[in-house]
């Protein structure tokens, strides 16, 4: 994995250098260009400059060919009907793809795959093929497929089908979380991490370390802080969580084009001491929802006390704060905790309207897998496989959904990528998924989203 990342980073760097040194742009491409002495006339087809660079030195280059025209068939809120619609759209796209492919020979294109959910296909194109495609009025855009060859969250993203959703296009945009913001209430975020840079729209901190004299665990030493740097991560957990939701570097998060608002409530030990900090954080996200288009609040921590029924009364202010968020259309999820308890879950996951998320494996990672917390044994799974509930995951009849939470690769505080496990890694998968759903249909309520996730698994 690390080697692949290094290779990808190297290739990206080389591509960037070539791109800037050659000085091509999309505008240059559509106004005409030359490859190996062959002059390409101006065309309405948008072409990725990387393709020009690659074909200058190679006979073939991997491409995605996007075609004009949409099926005109839109998805509805009815899941069953949407399956029929999906197939009808796929038929429409297939017909368009067939027409374009019929104009190309084996010397032009080595066909790789067709897309069922968007109007396009992929393959390796030659210089001759590019010439033909550039003249085809059905072709809208040709982009390098290298950009699609990227590391993502190991097996977890395919398991929740997020990568399939990325290829779905609505109103000309792929469903990647565009325009959505997730409020991550955690230890903060390393906003300079390459995978998160430019994604952190706002920061705040509510972190009362327990002194009445006004000191706290916010970066400036106070118990409240706002603005750039106020959610500086000094533990690493929040950075990892934010990456699962929306990293957009050499590793892709579930909603990699979504943005993050980071609210720090946990100190450098990953602990919080005052329940008012959580209330303040939820309320801050809610009152800033319009400003930053926050559609999701994700809380990936839990109380030491576990509950076998709702904890609305015990944490009355948390309950009211989540109601305030949900009534404004903000989806709220929380991790169930990692005690391996099969009858009780932690707060705030136990609050009635919060979507509680447990953890499953995303793949077979071996047999007799034992889990520990600070040297304390939690449990052992004799076998592991995708979708199996991890033994460390708290769960009971209040647990709403399960998502991958075992050794999930994401952004590490030191600027690299690495694995972490826990229901804390599961809940951000659901948060990211929600951002994708909200981009696809902004009118979905939190209840709709939870219902869809539960029904579709």
């Amino acid at each position, binding site marked *: 994995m690390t080697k692949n990342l290094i290779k990808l980073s190297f290739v990206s760097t080389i591509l960037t250098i070539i791109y800037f040194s050659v000085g091509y742009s999309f505008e240059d491409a559509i106004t005409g260009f030359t490859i190996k002495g062959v002059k390409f006339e101006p065309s309405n087809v948008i072409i990725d400059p990387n393709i020009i660079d690659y074909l200058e030195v190679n006979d073939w280059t991997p491409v995605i060919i996007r075609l004009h025209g949409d099926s005109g068939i839109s998805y509805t809120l009815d899941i069953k009907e949407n399956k029929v619609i999906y197939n009808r759209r796929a038929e429409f796209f297939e017909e368009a793809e067939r027409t374009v492919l019929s104009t190309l020979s084996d010397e032009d294109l080595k066909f790789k795959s067709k897309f069922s959910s968007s109007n396009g296909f992929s393959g390796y194109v030659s210089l001759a093929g590019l010439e033909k495609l550039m003249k085809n009025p059905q072709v809208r855009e040709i982009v390098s497929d290298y950009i699609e060859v990227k590391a993502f969250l190991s097996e977890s993203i395919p398991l929740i089908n997020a990568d399939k959703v990325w290829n779905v296009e609505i109103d000309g945009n792929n469903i990647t979380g565009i325009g959505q913001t997730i409020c991550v209430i955690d230890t903060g975020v390393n906003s300079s991490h390459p995978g998160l840079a430019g994604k952190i729209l706002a920061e705040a901190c509510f972190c009362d370390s327990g002194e009445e004299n*006004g000191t706290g665990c916010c970066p400036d030493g106070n118990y409240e802080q706002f603005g750039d740097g106020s959610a500086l991560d000094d533990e690493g957990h929040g950075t990892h969580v934010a990456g699962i939701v929306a990293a957009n570097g050499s590793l892709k998060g579930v909603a990699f084009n979504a943005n993050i608002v980071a609210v720090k409530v946990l100190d450098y030990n990953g602990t919080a001491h005052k329940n008012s900090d959580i209330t*303040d954080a939820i309320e801050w996200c809610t*009152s800033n929802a319009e400003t930053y288009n926050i559609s999701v609040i994700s809380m990936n*921590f839990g*109380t030491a006390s576990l509950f076998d029924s709702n904890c609305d009364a015990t944490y009355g202010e948390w309950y009211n704060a989540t109601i*305030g968020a949900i009534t404004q259309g903000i989806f709220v999820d929380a991790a169930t905790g990692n005690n391996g308890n099969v009858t009780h879950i932690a707060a705030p996951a136990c609050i009635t309207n919060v979507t509680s998320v447990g953890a499953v494996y995303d793949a077979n*990672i071996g047999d007799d897998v034992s889990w520990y917390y600070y040297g304390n044994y939690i449990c052992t799974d004799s076998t592991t496989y995708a979708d199996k509930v991890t033994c460390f995951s708290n769960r009971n009849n209040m647990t709403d959904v399960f998502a991958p939470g075992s050794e999930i690769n994401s952004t590490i505080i030191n600027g690299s990528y690495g*694995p*972490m496990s826990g229901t804390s890694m599961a809940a951000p998968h659901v948060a990211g998924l929600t951002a994708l759903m909200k981009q696809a249909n902004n009118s979905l309520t939190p209840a709709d989203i939870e219902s869809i996730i539960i029904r579709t698994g």
Partner: protein
Amino acid sequence: MKRKKPILTLTGLIISIILISIWYSYYFSFDQRVNRILVSNITIDSIVINDLKTNEWTPVTVRVYDEGNFIPVPNSTIPEIYDQKAAYFKEIHERIIATLSQEDFNYRSSFMSSNAFYGYVSLTGLEKLVKNPQVREIVSSYVNISINDPVRISGGPIK
């Protein structure tokens, strides 16, 4: 006989002072103050009392009775109503906080979605709060929250 009168008067004075001191220390002892707090109609978290036995201050959430006067501005959106209600709550909280000195209460924040506020209270502050008819409940703000993420140390290749 006449000579003994000043002595008796002095003795009586000393005894009175001692009795008053005993009564005063008893009346204002921690336990008595706590007892008077506990017999009020307000629900108080035992953690608050226990913490004040050893600390001068303890973090509390003060839950307040709703006065039932909130009327949203007509045609307001849900976010606008949320803000209006937060302002309504804050006004109530400020009236209560105004009855407390800096020795009584170290105010931190006023919740927007609950009729409650948060801060550090001293014993004298607690005594004042329990007498306030607007206060419904005083609960400890201590919470033990962690991320306790598990680590795999056996089974299969470790990443």
